[in-house]
């Protein structure tokens, strides 16, 4: 693997234009013989197995496979020996037919509107809710994977007392007396309630009622990946916490200073939709809605920026100061270098669009920077126009976790109730939460799992999964989104409001009762209130509940700048660096770390799976002679962590990024033993950044497993970037030795329809929602860390990440690659048993029961989109997990090749529906593939290419349209729209107006 000693050479190669224009990894740039061999092996494990077995080994394998085939021939009972009808058939439930419920998926307590598809009473798939005003049909990886969490066999299934199984009645009986006693003494002094961020109006009201009941009770919010910094920044500028939102549709330029406009989190679905709609509208009007991004660590927002810049946090603060000075007519302090050049361009764009510009910073930025951004927007006249504010969505009355630790350490805490939080694991390491907790006499914890906190508590209560719960939560725009159960609880779980009701109400109420009671208007008839709620439940949200815009005064001016401290001496063997903390892009703060889909989902930028890495810049790696996978120690204030290095192009030189969520210590959980725990290094006062830490090598190596070089394609012009409004390139037919193929799409497979897909690279933000949706829809099993390392992953859809330009400031591109459904498919030539062949509508079919597993098709496939079941990955799943499988899709066995089918089951359903509707044509949009439906930016279009009025035909006719590896004459049905750039065909900072 490439390491520090070679980085200088690589940089020189790229700078000299000697390397590839678009590259995926440092290894690919180095193009060493070892890397060539890796690519040629394609399936490295198969190559190893094929490496000349001796005669005995061969015979042994033959004998074993004969014996196995005999076993396989024996019919296994498949659990379908009985028909079990209902006793009384519920209305609207027809066995085998899909039924959809509107509900909400939660990220950190914030809602995204979703539709839950159920079949036979089991929730199987999450779709976006097109009517929801915030999510508008889009979803994110967390929503898509939540359905897996429901069927997780590791879930806590019953209340436990002191580690032994107990019951809810016992809990209630034990608590009644103790809570009465607490109430009697000083109104609940010593009682502490800990929750996650509360956006639910009904839960907030319930807690408020509880605080009236227990006036001395203290409430704390533990939000390890929360948005506190945003509210702190608003407090500094405006004196009160505020949510900042943007009207991107009216904006002419966006400048992001460590912003998270498109990154995973509560805002991703709605914000990325706002962004792409604005960008598309601008492109239609002939201009580019440019996105300038400067940040210390690569992010999705940075990847989509037309002008990305990697700078450290201090330089970023300087940029903000200089921009503010320039906006006020003053002059900047920094005049030279690439940072100043970037700032000048950004300022020119902002200055040219005063009142129609947006400056933004993200939830992980420093509050001081966020306040500067408020001042900047005010100075540019953007505030109140393109930038506006609402009241904060989560309730703000709670105290931070540090106050709880202080009370516990003093011995003042008599009872701690921790609901849906895991502070023993995710409290910042400098708080000493676990030691303080030991001093509390009564510790109650409710969670989905028996996690680290559960292990330290007296009472451990199982939470109901959101898919089995009644509840409500606000989306980031404030829209109250309702949560309704889609299945009877699998286990004996209760929701947070139900547990609070057990603790405080004389008669414990259920979730629906609590919801009804909260939303009943004063004086409203009970039946009328219920009917109104039923109507809202059908839509999934309460219309008109978005938070209104708040007008703000002029922001407070910045406090005098503290004198810059002396630069830290970089002496000794350890080097001083700035450490940035970020939530993990797939498992978030660790609360989702038990979901195998998310563990095996390649992280958008590193493509690492099943673990986290310590991201360092190429320059730091070069200086410290670090290689990919070297274990380093980061140490600050006596706290430390050890993790493997990842050399991340586009990382600011002296910044090191660590991600939260790994290093779990709860035995028995899936995530146990994966990665390192970054919480231990964290400081409560500055949760997202440690200004001064030391980095040292340990000498050990622990190479992370990554998919970034899996499925590498041989060819050129894979990713294309096209200037806005550039004339269409003349498409002269390439010279070929073959006779000319029929020209039209319908020529070769003359069916009624010609299914095709167009993927817009300008819209793709690399968020992975499509990959998870595909996994959920198509019963794609998880193979595990070791198998991924061997190249045996099974995702039908992968997102390739390419870098363009130099090592230190590259542009980043994302490219989703499903099966291309080539009209002249090379794979079909390779198959000896016709297990892969075309139908008349142009689908490249895979017939599992014909496949004998030669894998020839895969070696013939230039796009590397075929996946092989080396082992029986789907076979040994727990029965409860098998409940999640989509019955419309075959569960593939061992030894079978598989790949994207264009969701043939959805096409078949639409075809059958059309046939039943008196042979009506299938309307455009009636077939939505899983990936298409999940995409928050609507980057994927699917439909009938023969229908000239279809959206996909329009996209195929776009001048940006191109075929991946089109020179091979495979005539792929999946084509791409080139990414947009301002001027010239090159992407990146040069292409600025």
């Amino acid at each position, binding site marked *: 693997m490439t390491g520090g000693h070679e980085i200088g050479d690589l940089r020189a190669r790229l700078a000299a234009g000697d390397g590839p224009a678009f590259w995926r990894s440092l290894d690919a740039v180095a193009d060493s013989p070892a890397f060539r061999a890796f690519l040629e092996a394609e399936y490295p494990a198969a190559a190893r197995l094929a490496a000349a077995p001796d005669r005995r080994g061969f015979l042994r394998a033959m004998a074993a496979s004969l014996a196995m085939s005999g076993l396989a021939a024996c019919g296994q009972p498949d659990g379908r020996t009985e*028909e079990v009808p209902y006793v009384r058939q519920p209305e609207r439930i*027809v*066995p085998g037919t899909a039924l959809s419920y509107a509900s909400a998926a939660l990220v950190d307590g914030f809602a995204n509107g979703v539709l839950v598809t159920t079949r036979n009473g089991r929730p199987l798939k999450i779709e976006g809710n097109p009517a929801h005003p915030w999510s508008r049909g889009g979803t994110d990886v967390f929503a898509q994977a939540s359905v897996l969490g429901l069927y997780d066999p590791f879930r806590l299934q019953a209340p436990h007392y002191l580690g032994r199984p107990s019951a809810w009645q016992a809990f209630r009986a034990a608590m009644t007396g103790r809570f009465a006693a607490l109430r009697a003494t000083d109104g609940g002094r010593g009682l502490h309630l800990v929750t996650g961020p509360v956006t639910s109006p009904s839960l907030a009201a319930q807690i408020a009622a509880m605080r009236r009941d227990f006036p001395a009770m203290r409430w704390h919010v533990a939000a390890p990946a929360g948005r506190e910094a945003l509210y702190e920044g608003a407090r500094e500028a405006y004196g009160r916490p505020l949510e900042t939102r943007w009207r991107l549709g009216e904006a002419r330029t966006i400048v992001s200073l460590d912003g998270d406009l498109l990154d995973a989190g509560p805002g991703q679905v709605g914000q990325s939709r706002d962004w792409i709609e604005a960008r598309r509208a601008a492109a239609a009007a002939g201009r580019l809605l440019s996105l300038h991004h400067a940040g210390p660590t690569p992010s999705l927002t940075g990847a989509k920026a037309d002008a990305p810049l990697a700078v450290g946090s201090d330089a970023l603060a300087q940029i903000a100061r200089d921009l503010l000075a320039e906006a006020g007519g003053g002059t900047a302090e920094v005049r030279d270098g690439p940072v100043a050049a970037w700032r000048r361009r950004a300022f020119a764009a902002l200055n040219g669009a005063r009142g129609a510009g947006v400056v933004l910073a993200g939830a992980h930025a420093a509050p001081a920077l966020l306040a500067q951004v408020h001042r900047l927007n005010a100075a540019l006249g953007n505030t109140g126009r393109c930038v506006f504010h609402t009241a904060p969505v989560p309730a703000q009355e709670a105290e931070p976790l540090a106050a709880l630790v202080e009370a516990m350490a003093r011995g003042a805490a008599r009872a701690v109730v921790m609901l849906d939080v895991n502070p023993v694991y995710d409290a910042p390491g400098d708080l000493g939460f676990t030691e303080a907790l030991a001093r509390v006499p009564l510790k109650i914890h409710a969670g989905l799992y028996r996690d680290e906190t559960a292990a330290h508590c007296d009472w451990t209560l199982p939470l109901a999964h959101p898919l089995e719960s009644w509840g409500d939560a606000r989306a980031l725009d404030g829209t109250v989104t309702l949560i309704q159960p889609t299945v009877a609880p699998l286990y004996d779980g209760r929701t947070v409001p139900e547990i609070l009701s057990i603790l405080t109400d004389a008669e414990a109420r259920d979730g629906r009762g609590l919801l009804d009671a909260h939303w009943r208007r004063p004086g409203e008839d009970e039946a009328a209130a219920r009917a109104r709620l039923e109507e809202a439940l059908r839509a999934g949200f309460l219309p008109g509940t978005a938070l209104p815009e708040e007008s703000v005064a002029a922001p407070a001016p910045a406090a005098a700048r503290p004198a810059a401290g002396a630069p830290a001496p970089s002496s000794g063997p350890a080097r001083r660096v700035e450490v940035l903390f970020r939530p993990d892009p797939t498992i978030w703060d660790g609360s989702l770390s038990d979901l195998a889909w998310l563990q095996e989902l390649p992280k958008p930028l590193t493509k690492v799976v099943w673990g986290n890495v310590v991201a360092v810049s190429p320059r730091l790696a070069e200086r410290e002679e670090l290689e990919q996978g070297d274990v380093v120690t980061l140490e600050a204030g006596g706290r430390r962590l050890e993790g493997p290095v990842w050399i991340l192009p586009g990382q600011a030189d002296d910044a090191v990024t660590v991600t939260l969520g790994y290093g779990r210590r709860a035995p028995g959980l899936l995530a146990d033993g994966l990665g390192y725990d970054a919480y231990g290094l964290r400081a409560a006062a500055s949760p997202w950044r440690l200004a001064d830490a030391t980095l040292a090598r340990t000498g050990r190596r622990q190479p992370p497993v990554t998919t970034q070089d899996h499925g590498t394609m041989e060819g050129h012009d894979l990713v294309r970037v096209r200037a806005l409004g550039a004339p269409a390139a003349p498409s002269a037919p390439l010279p070929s030795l073959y006779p000319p193929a029929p020209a039209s799409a319908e020529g070769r497979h003359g069916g009624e329809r010609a299914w095709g897909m167009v993927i817009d690279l300008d819209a793709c933000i690399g968020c992975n929602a499509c990959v998870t949706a595909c996994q959920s829809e198509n019963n794609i099993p998880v193979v595990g860390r070791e198998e991924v390392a061997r190249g045996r992953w099974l995702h039908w859809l992968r997102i390739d990440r390419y870098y363009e330009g130099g090592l230190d400031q590259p542009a980043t591109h994302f490219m989703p690659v499903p099966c291309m459904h080539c009209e002249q498919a090379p794979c079909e030539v390779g198959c000896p048993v016709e297990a892969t062949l075309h139908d008349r509508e142009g689908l490249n079919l895979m017939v*599992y029961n014909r496949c004998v597993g030669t894998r020839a098709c895969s070696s013939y496939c230039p796009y590397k989109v075929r996946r092989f079941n080396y082992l029986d990955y789907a076979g040994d799943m727990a029965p409860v997990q098998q409940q999640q499988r989509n019955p*419309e899709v075959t569960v593939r066995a061992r030894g079978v090749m598989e790949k994207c089918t264009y969701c*043939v089951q959805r096409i078949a359903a639409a075809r*059958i529906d059309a046939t039943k509707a008196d042979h009506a044509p299938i309307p455009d949009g009636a077939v939505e593939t899983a990936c298409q439906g999940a995409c928050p930016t609507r980057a994927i279009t699917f439909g009938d290419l023969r229908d000239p009025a279809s959206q996909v035909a329009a996209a195929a006719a776009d001048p940006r349209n191109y075929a991946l590896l089109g020179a091979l004459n495979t005539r792929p049905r999946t084509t791409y729209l080139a990414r947009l750039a301002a001027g010239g065909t090159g992407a990146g900072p040069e292409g600025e107006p």
Partner: protein
Amino acid sequence: MRQLFAPGADALFRLALLTAAACLAALPVVGAGLMRSSYVTGVGVAPAQPVPFSHKHHSGELAIDCRYCHTSVETQATAGIPPTHTCMTCHGQIWSGSDMLAPVRASYARDEPLHWTRLNKLPGYVYYNHAVHVQNGIGCSTCHGNVTEMQLTYRANAFEMSFCLDCHRNPEKYVRPKDEILTMTWSPPANQAEIGPELVRQYHIRGGERLTECAICHR
């Protein structure tokens, strides 16, 4: 030294060789016969059911419409097995004390479903849709046989792939007029060769080439 082999040993050895050869030759024949036998396919075998329900009585003698119980056959992929409630619509009134119906009453009273032994089963990778067949001229009896003659219900066809393909290749031989779909005793009339292609056209059934594409049944 005594001879090890008796005079007849050679003959015995030859006989053994011949028998072995014959067995080898017979093995595929016997195997194929076994695979086609009702022991394996289950055709014609009525398994024990919690209630000895008679299609002959209900559907034949009483002439209750198929769709009274199999409610979703015209609209959904599955025809639907009736809930206990459907049985009790009549048997709450008639034969309400019959011993034979005790499991039905128990199911209704205890809210525990009846567990019927499954008769018709396709492999997991085959996707069949009742509605689209019933609406396009394929009658119940084509696959399920004449259930009005079945005292106890059994599987009428083995549902091997060739059974499906016979019809998917030549639908005109099997399609019926709409009003004959539920007729259990239907057999192709003498002029099927004339009305068949006409019906195929009316039903917009695509040709054999399209209907035999893999993705029509396999996903």
